[in-house]
């Protein structure tokens, strides 16, 4: 672990001084396939947001060992009724490398068409995104992510309200990313899916409850602990003086 993809150093994240992630320490190695599980309000999305650089820590730090990252938020800013075609939306994934100016080569268009086919949307290329179902749109967002070609991939509940067949198809893409040596961090609620596909798990209920091989983390005892977390912030909470 000489050169980890991410290092969390005594990381505390939160809102209005209240912690949502409390004193998290650890490293994610290059090429890891890590699931983050835990109750609602446990700080999972907050952690991804901070890794993506959209939120500054209340304390501690995040050190990046990768140069590029792609982030799929749980609720994105995408305006779904925008008049844009499936192909054009996928092509925006190339902008992280190619910038906002200049045309795309024939090869890059080819790559985009291949990505669209890989997520099972062949034949949808010229369709307006307005006409896509939730699952189809999620497939398209995966295609856009493929084209981003990032070393670190952050997925925040990518399979919520998605049917089994689509999840299976998209997990193939996740495994492909893993085989390509990319680091994948996914927030998930489906524990069977986590057991089946993710070698490592971080359980987060504000405080980190466990981090390691999935089978050792998803134990009945820990799951019960996670359910006991008090979601609401304590308005009279004292200042935290826990040592680093």
């Amino acid at each position, binding site marked *: 672990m000489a050169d980890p993809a991410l290092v969390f150093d005594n990381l505390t994240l939160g809102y209005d001084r209240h912690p949502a992630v409390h004193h998290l320490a650890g490293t994610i190695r290059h090429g890891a396939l890590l699931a983050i599980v835990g109750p609602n309000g446990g700080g999972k999305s907050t952690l991804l947001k901070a890794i*993506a650089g*959209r939120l500054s820590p209340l304390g501690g730090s995040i050190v990046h060992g990768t140069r590029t990252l*792609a*982030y799929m*938020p749980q609720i*994105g*800013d*995408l*305006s779904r009724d*925008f*008049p*844009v075609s499936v192909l054009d*939306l996928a092509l*925006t994934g190339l*902008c*992280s490398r190619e*910038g*906002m*100016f200049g045309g795309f080569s024939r090869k890059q268009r080819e790559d985009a068409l291949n990505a669209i086919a890989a997520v099972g949307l062949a034949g949808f290329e010229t369709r*307006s995104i*307005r006409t896509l179902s939730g699952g189809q749109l999620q497939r398209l967002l995966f295609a856009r992510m493929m084209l*981003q070609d990032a070393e670190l991939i952050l997925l925040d509940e990518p399979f919520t309200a998605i049917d089994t067949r689509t999840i299976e198809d998209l997990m193939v893409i996740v495994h492909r990313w893993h085989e390509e040596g990319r680091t994948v961090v996914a927030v998930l609620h489906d524990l069977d899916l986590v057991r089946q596909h993710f070698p490592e798990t971080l359980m987060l209920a504000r405080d980190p409850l466990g981090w390691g091989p999935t089978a050792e983390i998803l134990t009945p005892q820990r799951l019960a602990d996670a359910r006991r977390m008090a979601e609401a912030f304590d308005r009279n909470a004292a200042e935290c003086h826990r040592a680093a």
Partner: protein
Amino acid sequence: MVYDLLIAPFVEFPFMKRALVGGIAISLGAAPIGVFLMLRRMSLIGDAMAHAILPGAAIGFLIGGLTIGTMTLGGLIAGLGVALASGVVARSTLVKEDMALAAFYLISLALGVTLISASRNNIDVLALLFGSILALDDATLLLIVSAASLTLAALALGYRGILMECLDPGFAAGVSRFGSIFHLGFLVLVVLNLVAGFHALGTLLVVGIMMLPAGTARLWSDDVAGMIGIAIPVALVSNLAGLMVSYHLGLASGPAIILVAGGLYALSLALAPHGLLRPLLPKRHLEA
């Protein structure tokens, strides 16, 4: 007959010729800007910005009199100030863009009106509000044409960035450090076009030539490039037809132009593929 009706006014009267050139230039710049504003769901922002510009132009008038230089500069400073300040507030506080803009333009408007009434100078507010397209001098025409050229060049260069910033702002910010630059740059273009256009159509009506062709285009096309391709000719036709109507019927020209644009919008609302009447002519649905 056709010559008398359509061509003679523009040949015989230099002020009509100037009005036509000014109108064409305004259409070329403002119509595509309107399309982007509409796609960003900022259709009413133009109106707010126009109110923000008014006091700036009025203060410029108080300082330099009825000269294009100070009035334009005043309008630009007021408009850009409001656009940038509200952009910063929207991005760094919980106040969203519409509220941020509303706050700044209302302050700007009240400040402007206060300054004007305190000076006791007899300013022609009607000319500021509704413009004087029949009285464009060389300097004003130059300003309008330059603004339109700059707008078209900037839109061509920043097309992808502005579109991505409309489509998925979070994603655009993630993949490019220029994310918010595109947004702010676009707001600058909005202000520039409003300031250039207000000499001809006034601060209030200039928003009409920006937004009505865009709304019309949306009814005919479901494609951004297509919308721009429709909005520009609609704006051009509105200008030409509006000037002719005002000439032959002796009506105020600015409002006549906007009324023609409004008429084209109403017509499209009825007839266009994405309009009101199309669902009343049902076709059988397809197999799959």
